[in-house]
């Protein structure tokens, strides 16, 4: 929001510098957005306060904050003789208020200096007195209005309606526009002459030869304006106001002020023409209580300043006592919903910089951190300590037709219009980047969601993805399996095993799949391992004196030996653990060596015989 300080000074008297103006505006909600340009401020406007889209609105709050006298322009032509020369017909649901006036015998020419100066400092072009005045009043009151040359009308009518298919208009900036079906327009003789709340048409525009004008100002459904302006790709001063929740009541003030200025600087005689109204007044009855104000602010004293501040902000105080103030909110404040909004005004004008800090006195409530977050932190720590780098990758990917994949409904980016099914899809980009940098030991992981459709449900699943590139395919495979073991054993999940499945290779815990892997990537379902994990590390207070022995068996090259080693572990309860040692291929057979441990040295011979006979019997492998 551009705010020329000279313009603000039309409504109040102060010697403050632009910097001081900026500081106060910032504190009350209009933050300085860009460097100060001489006497002009660019302030950040948030969408709540539609009255701040006007010089009067900004000046009013500034005056209230600085305790200055605020002078609104004096309005003269409030009552005019009525001459309904142009018939107004409303055929659209989008109109809340529409008011018109006719001014005859005007003389189009140059604007007075003060108007030109203010428009230039605001950044609007100077055109002619009539157009300039409508722009001036729009910025002053925040209410768009516009004037049309009545002599260019083919029929003396204005119809506000939604467009049908294929209608076009040539706008004031001379571009021919195709209008979407259902766009609100002002039309005459069934031809659009203006896009309602957005931009005027060229055909009925005011020029040097204009002598008779119809002035209109309207309040329309803001959401439709926003939608239409985006479809048409039009951003201008009119749109930036009509797309907000403007108060319909400002229409009256704006049209009167514009009439006053036109009569003064372009001459002529003005008449009231038809108007239309269909809205609930903005002003609300509200009660501000001492109790609520004290509760939110943490201080009792604010209530003593409340009525003064409310008065300065144009609230109408209807009654008050020790405990409460009854008010009618100002007509221009479309943002006020609840009592706390009134509280907010009091704190704001009293000064946010004066709020004193105070620690929370209450006892901390019960801990509600979900276990999954604690697990994720633990897993992350384990991997980082093991030399893995954490990455966070973009979960969007290009849709590939996979019916399990979640496709986005309205993505602007066709290369990233759906969500990843596996972290590998996106972590892989990072992996490739590392490879391009010729980094030869790559160990990466990510903790994040994978997403998929399951029937009509959209599922997100907390997932860990691990990727390694530390050597040849066998070295990577060993590293991946070692890392799976590192994580699971650290979480106390020892009884897991691997199995071939439709996912390739699955990480199993009894009959449940808790993850999968391939030669350089592993993915683990974190929710599932959270249920199995123990947060107590496997501590042994007494050292077990284990005897160990190695055995090698020979199996067919295509046999999955993981199961055989798992089987050995369970042959005899006296076996403490079984570990893979090495494997090699000779004569098209695979030889696998493993080591078994027991704390019963005298039983080792017996255990050994049992392993050999039992495994041979079950799997046919030779030792």
């Amino acid at each position: 929001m551009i705010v020329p300080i000279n313009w603000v000074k039309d409504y109040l008297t102060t010697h403050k510098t632009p910097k001081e103006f900026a500081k106060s505006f910032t504190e009350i909600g209009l933050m300085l957005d860009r460097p100060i340009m001489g006497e002009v401020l660019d302030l950040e406007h948030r969408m709540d306060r539609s009255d701040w889209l006007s010089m009067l609105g900004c000046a009013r709050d500034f005056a209230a904050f600085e305790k200055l006298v605020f002078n609104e322009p004096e309005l003269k032509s409030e009552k005019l003789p009525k001459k309904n020369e142009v018939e107004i017909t409303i055929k659209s649901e989008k109109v809340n208020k529409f008011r018109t006036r006719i001014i005859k015998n005007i003389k189009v020419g140059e604007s007075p200096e003060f108007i030109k100066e203010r428009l230039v400092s605001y950044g609007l072009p100077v055109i002619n007195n009539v157009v300039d005045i409508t722009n001036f009043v729009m910025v002053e009151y925040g209410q768009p209005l516009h004037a049309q040359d009545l002599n260019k009308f083919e029929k003396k009518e204005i119809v506000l309606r939604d467009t049908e298919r294929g209608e076009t208009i040539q706008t004031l900036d001379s571009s021919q526009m195709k209008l979407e079906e259902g766009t609100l327009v002002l039309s005459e003789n069934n031809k659009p002459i203006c896009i309602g709340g957005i931009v005027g048409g060229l055909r009925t525009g005011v020029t040097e030869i204009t002598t008779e004008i119809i002035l209109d100002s309207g309040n329309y459904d803001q959401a439709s304006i926003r939608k239409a302006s985006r479809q048409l790709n039009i951003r201008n001063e009119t749109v930036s106001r009509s797309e907000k929740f403007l108060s319909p009541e400002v229409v009256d003030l704006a049209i009167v002020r514009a009439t006053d200025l036109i009569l003064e600087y372009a001459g002529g005689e003005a008449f009231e023409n038809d108007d239309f109204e269909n809205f609930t007044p903005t002003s609300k009855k509200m009660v501000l209580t001492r109790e609520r104000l004290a509760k939110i602010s943490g201080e009792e004293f604010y209530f003593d300043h409340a009525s003064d501040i409310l008065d300065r902000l144009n609230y109408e105080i209807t009654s008050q006592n020790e405990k409460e103030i009854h008010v009618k909110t100002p007509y221009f404040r479309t943002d006020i919903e609840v009592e706390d909004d009134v509280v907010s005004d009091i704190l704001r004008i009293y000064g946010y910089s004066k709020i004193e800090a105070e620690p929370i006195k209450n006892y901390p409530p019960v801990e509600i951190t979900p276990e999954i977050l604690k697990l994720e932190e633990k897993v992350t720590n384990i991997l980082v300590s093991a030399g893995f780098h954490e990455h966070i990758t973009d979960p969007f990917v290009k849709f590939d037709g996979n019916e399990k994949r979640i496709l986005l409904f309205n993505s602007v980016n066709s290369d990233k219009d759906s969500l990843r099914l596996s972290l590998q899809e996106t972590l892989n980009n990072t992996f490739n980047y590392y490879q391009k940098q010729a980094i030869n030991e790559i160990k990466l992981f990510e903790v994040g969601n994978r997403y998929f459709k399951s029937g009509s449900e959209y599922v997100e699943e907390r997932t860990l993805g691990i990727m390694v590139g530390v050597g040849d395919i066998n070295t990577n495979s060993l590293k991946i399996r070692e890392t799976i073991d590192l994580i699971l054993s650290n979480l106390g999940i020892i009884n897991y095993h691997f199995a071939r499945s439709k996912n390739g290779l699955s990480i199993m815990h009894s009959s449940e799949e808790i993850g999968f892997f391939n030669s350089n990537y592993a993915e683990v379902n974190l929710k599932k391992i959270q249920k199995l994990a123990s947060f107590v590390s496997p501590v042994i207070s007494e050292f077990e004196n284990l005897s160990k022995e190695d055995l090698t068996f020979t199996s067919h090259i295509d046999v999955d030996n993981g199961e055989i080693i798992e089987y050995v572990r369970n042959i005899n309860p006296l076996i403490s653990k079984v570990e893979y040692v090495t494997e090699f291929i000779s004569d098209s057979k695979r030889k696998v060596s493993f080591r078994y441990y027991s704390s019963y040295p005298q039983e080792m011979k017996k255990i050994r015989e049992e392993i050999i006979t039992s495994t041979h019997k079950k799997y046919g492998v030779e030792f």
Partner: protein
Amino acid sequence: MYIENKISEIKNSFAVDVQNLPKDDLYLKYFSKTNGLVTLLIKEIPSLTKEDKKIYGQKINEISKEIEAKINEISTEEKISIDETIKIPSGSKGYLHPVTETIREMNNFFRYYGFSVYDGPEIETEEYNFRKLNLPENHPATDLQDTLFIEPGLLLRTHTSSLETRVLTEKNPPIRAVMPGKVFRNETPSATNASFFHQYQGVVVDKNISIKNLVQTLTDFHKYLFGPDVVIRFRYKYYPEVSPGLGTDIQCQFCKGDGCKVCKYRGYIEVLGSGMIHYNTLKMCGIDPKEYTGFAFGMGLSRLVMQRYKIDNIRKLYGGEITYK
């Protein structure tokens, strides 16, 4: 005297041996059960006269203890032959992602003040992402334009405020929680905008929570994050889900508030948005706004993280184009 000569002989030979023989050999030579020099000497004690026993028995004991102690002192450790003053780089270092590291640091602060860490879905309903935040249909902030929808009514959360309505709905007050998380926007990626980034949300709901508590908490938090000398500015700022709303800035450390390139000539840098939780939000989350009050705050993490880690492009932060030294 025979025995006295023996004692001094052993003493002298040990003085030489201790310089040359390894520990085990020394032990064998002097204390071997069968022919250790000291062992043999001790064995002679019974054959001494009563008087000599008195004099030399004690001396022999002393020499035995002395030699044994000296042998025990000898270290058996391997002797190092490489230079121990050279630094050796670790071949395998793992680092947390800058965002995770920053989130953890923030969590540490809030956990100290009794906050839990909370979480919720990324695929969210309009109810939690908009409606409960006092954003009615047709509100400019709910525009289809900025939101990634999966189907009508179902979207990828656009802010961590949806986690706030989650915790307020799912838990009973008193509540104190912080909620880091990913958020998603329908944007064409650029150096400063990504289609997803991280935000950090915090919420406190209890009896008698006032804006003064909010100011204290955020002041302490900013001091923790930016150092004790940080200058903080509070100003009115509108957010639909709070009233009164409050914007928090820190003074630019380069220009000290005068305005420079770094702070875009504002003199201050915006850190977060906050406010007292809106009456309607509490109500829609099933909390009685007359009994309980509370505050909430939310901040973007990307800019903060990029500044701390000197990363100039958001795509590098998330595109995997950061490696670690």
